[in-house]
């Protein structure tokens, strides 16, 4: 029996499948924390979920509001500081981190700082936060993209992927050999990086999405895997977990806000009547 799901749910589920048992995982704000909870609950009970605020080995019971949400769980194993969370990453103890994407180029370099000129921005985005250091020193980095863009040239280079491609990242001497983004998950498909050229390519496509629909978002001639696969659809168990754990993620931002606003209005009207 097929189960009904949203593309946002699929994105969360595909990201969760990248979390393996016994790995040390750094979770970024938003979607990755839901993926982390899903993985821990369904297939990776021994995964060590960590956040840069210094919360190590936590198991969220509700969707964390942010990466310092010590109230989304009942205690956790180690309370350290942000400085130590990053030096732990620098020393090579982090297996995988998850980062969101605003702009990404052909070689997985990222911009999360600004659209337009840095000193006179069209849109000022959040900035680096932990991103630049995590993608530098995690063994793997999984990029998740909702509403971001593929661009030929980043407006601002926030976080290093494979630099100019090929062996540039390893040659720079700035990063551990073999590190860098391992995949990018969007609401249309799963992208990976060519082992030699480090150019991004479409590796799997989500069910019901056409290749042209992916290509139209990319301003260069996107490489497509010769053996392009279809993303494994979510299981009933995976979908059920998200609906129960983070119903607002299932609903999506727009619907969640619309319903919450209506709910507040209803309550306030009832208060005025009583």
């Amino acid at each position, binding site marked *: 029996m097929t189960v009904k799901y949203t593309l946002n749910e699929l994105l969360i589920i595909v990201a969760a499948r990248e979390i393996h048992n016994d790995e040390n995982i750094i979770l970024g704000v938003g979607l990755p924390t839901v993926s982390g909870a899903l993985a821990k609950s369904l297939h990776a009970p021994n995964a060590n979920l960590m956040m840069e605020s210094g919360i190590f080995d936590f198991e969220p019971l509700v969707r964390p509001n942010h990466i310092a949400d010590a109230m989304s769980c009942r205690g956790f194993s180690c309370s350290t*500081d*942000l400085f130590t969370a990053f030096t732990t990453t620098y020393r090579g103890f982090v297996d995988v981190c998850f980062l969101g994407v605003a702009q990404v180029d052909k070689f997985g370099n990222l911009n999360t700082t600004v659209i337009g000129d840095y000193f006179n921005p069209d*849109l000022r985005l*959040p900035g680096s936060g*932990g991103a630049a250091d995590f993608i530098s020193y995690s063994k793997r980095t999984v990029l998740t993209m909702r509403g971001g863009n593929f661009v030929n040239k980043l407006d601002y280079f926030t976080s290093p992927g494979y630099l100019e491609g090929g062996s540039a990242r390893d040659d720079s001497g700035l990063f551990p050999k073999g590190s860098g983004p391992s995949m990018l998950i969007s609401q249309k498909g799963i992208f990976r990086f060519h082992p030699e050229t480090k150019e991004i390519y479409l590796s799997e496509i989500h069910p019901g999405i056409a290749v042209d629909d992916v290509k139209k978002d990319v301003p260069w001639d996107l490489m497509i895997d010769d053996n392009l696969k279809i993303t494994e659809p979510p299981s009933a168990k995976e979908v059920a977990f998200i609906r129960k754990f983070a119903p607002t993620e299932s609903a999506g931002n727009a619907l969640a806000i619309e319903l919450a606003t209506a709910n507040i209005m209803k309550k306030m009207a009832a208060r005025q009547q009583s």
Partner: protein
Amino acid sequence: MSQFNEKVMSLSDAVSQFVKEGDELIIGNYTLCACAELVFEVVRQQKKHLTVYSQSGIFDVEVMVAAGIVDRLVTTYTMRSGGKSGGSAVERALQARTLQLEDYTNYNYNARLIAGMHGFNFMQVFEGVMATDLYRIRGFMGDDKYRVIDCPYTGDKILTVPALNPDVCIIHVPRADKFGNAQYWGAMGSVMAAALASKRIIVSCEEIVEHDVIQASPHHTIIPAFRTDAVVEVPWGSHPTEVVGYYNMDRLAYGMFQGAAATEDGLKTWLDEWVYGCPDRGAYMDKYVATFGSETLENLRAKDYYSTPVNYGSAFTSPWKHDGTERGMGVTLEELETIMEERGLFHDC
């Protein structure tokens, strides 16, 4: 500051005494437990021309930038409301050229505080940033944003950031005593470093507790009394953000603020209503309850989940046993003094 001076005062006195116009002011808190009421009071007193440091420049920074009291901002993360059609006070101030900004990574920013709190000149940071615009594009700090040195041991190129010692830190904590021992738990972030790197420290807290409570849980103290200049008890002092063990984030009020922050007029109206319109936190909470009902507020209160106490006990707390003899030497004090006299150990005067 003496350790046993009582430093309890009103919030307005603390801010007027210890925050000065043109200061380098650092927000001690990181993402949660925001020093909301301290920020509001700095805004009410219009302490202008500040250079503001905030590890995560979201609620706190938006309020201060919108109030026009910030000339320069150093941060790693800014807030933006309402997607592509929305905006933020920081974005508007950058576009109007009324705000200068320096962007760091979370680690770089924290490293400057670690250097500052320990009295070092600089801190080594991870070299990966050298591949990025964080390194290449400099704001008002220019060459001093990052400098590269040769490691005297290995000869490697080492990236560094300069130490930071802000003039004043404003910080909210769950609890403190009247002397200024301040305790914090939850997500430690860069909270302790921000406070201890600073020259002056203003602490607001959910509750002032007995000194005994602090002494029985010293591992939670992040600021020792002798470093603290002022302590103010401000219940709900972080609202609409959360304080671990006291109350959750108020998603309704926070969402309302974010909605307002998307536009200049929206944020101005919000400031008039919730900051300038409320002389203190008591008035703010009264207004909140009048608007949204006490039930909305009560729903935010944390249910208890206590940490297991650690055992600070020891085998004995006196060198003298119950029978009056010393544990090692096996004699009473009287006997010891007699022996000392016999051996001629006392100074002849």
